[in-house]
């Protein structure tokens, strides 16, 4: 695990300022907001969040690590999310995931060392009619194929 970069405390203060001091119930909402600001949940931000909301650091860590939607490590510039929902599964999602692992050269759930790519799975995004589906930087690639993904990822690598 690489050391985490230092974070801009002003930005963090702006996010945390929206929450009432001591309001522990806002924890998950606050985690969402911190993550939208920094794209992941930096350690320092989690600790500061704990202080702001008046809850223990262990609770914040326990909660942040419980939910799939929160990321405790810095993420890549390009995010490839493979939908692993049932509809996508029966239409070949596992093969697409393996294909992307090979194309990008990282295992699912990992971020490349140069922080270019993050490859991850999502349980289902509810776009089942489009399966198999891969979301790359927010764009939905429905009914997709290994060849199509090779092209898209290849283009991102060049950029």
């Amino acid at each position, binding site marked *: 695990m690489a050391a985490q970069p230092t974070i801009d405390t002003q930005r963090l203060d702006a996010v945390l300022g929206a929450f009432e001091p001591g309001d522990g119930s806002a924890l998950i909402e606050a985690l969402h907001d911190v993550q939208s600001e920094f794209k992941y949940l930096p350690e320092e931000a989690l*600790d500061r969040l704990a202080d702001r909301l008046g809850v*223990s*650091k*262990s*609770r914040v*860590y326990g909660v942040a690590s419980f939910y799939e939607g929160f990321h405790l490590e810095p993420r890549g510039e390009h995010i490839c999310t493979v939908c692993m929902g049932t509809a996508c599964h029966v239409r070949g999602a596992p093969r697409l995931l393996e294909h992307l692992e090979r194309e990008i050269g990282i295992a699912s759930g990992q971020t490349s060392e140069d922080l270019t790519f993050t490859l991850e799975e999502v349980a289902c995004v509810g776009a089942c009619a489009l399966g198999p589906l891969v979301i790359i930087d927010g764009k939905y690639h429905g009914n997709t194929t290994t060849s199509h993904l090779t092209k898209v990822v290849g283009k991102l690598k060049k950029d």
Partner: protein
Amino acid sequence: MPVQVKINGIKMSAEPQETVLQVARRSGVHIPTLCHLESVESTGACRVCLVEMKLGGKTQLTTSCNAGVEDGMEIMTDTPEVQKHRAANLEMMLGRAPGSQKIRALAREYGVYESAYVPSEDPAIPGCILCELCVRVCEALGHSALAAVSRGGKKYIGTPHDKPSESCVGCGACAEKCPTRCIEMTDTKKTRTIWGQTFDFVSCETCGAPVMTVRQRTHAVETKELPEDYYTTCVACKQKNLAGRFARVGS
């Protein structure tokens, strides 16, 4: 108003806030437990306190540690069904904690000698059955230094960011209460090492034995508003002193 329940066919009166386990224990019925401690919240994690419960025409297994009694409940604590599933859960726990004498002994009672289960994730703490008793104890003591991290098969017990926690006072309650004794705690005469940090002991003014960690005393003095010099003598010496004082009063 008290409620009427039956445990193994025997009628009992119980208070509505009591749990099945409490009622069973005070009437001398044995139910095994691993992750239960009266002073902290019961979560039904380990599942060995399973009993068969009949209520409203429905029979099901339930953990007794966190099941409140209800009027008309019929509890059977040792049916073949109960034994079978206690055994199965014990086999899983034995797979996680093959070195735990407590689990091994209990499993043996249910005819389980070896476990075929091998957890797919390497455990963060070998021998841990993930029951979170340590987390609950730590929270109840007001430290909250430990957390259950992640979930499902990836769950483990750790400190925030898996680094030494400033909330940990080195009291060692987690290690002491752990049913499998899997939390590493190393004491020397002067120090205690636990959860990745080493704490200095307060040495007994009389005999020099460790009383508690310095941080534990600081925490206790602050939160309980005790005099600064509190907790400077070990329990044994304190008792000896008191006994001496009583003896003098007596004469």
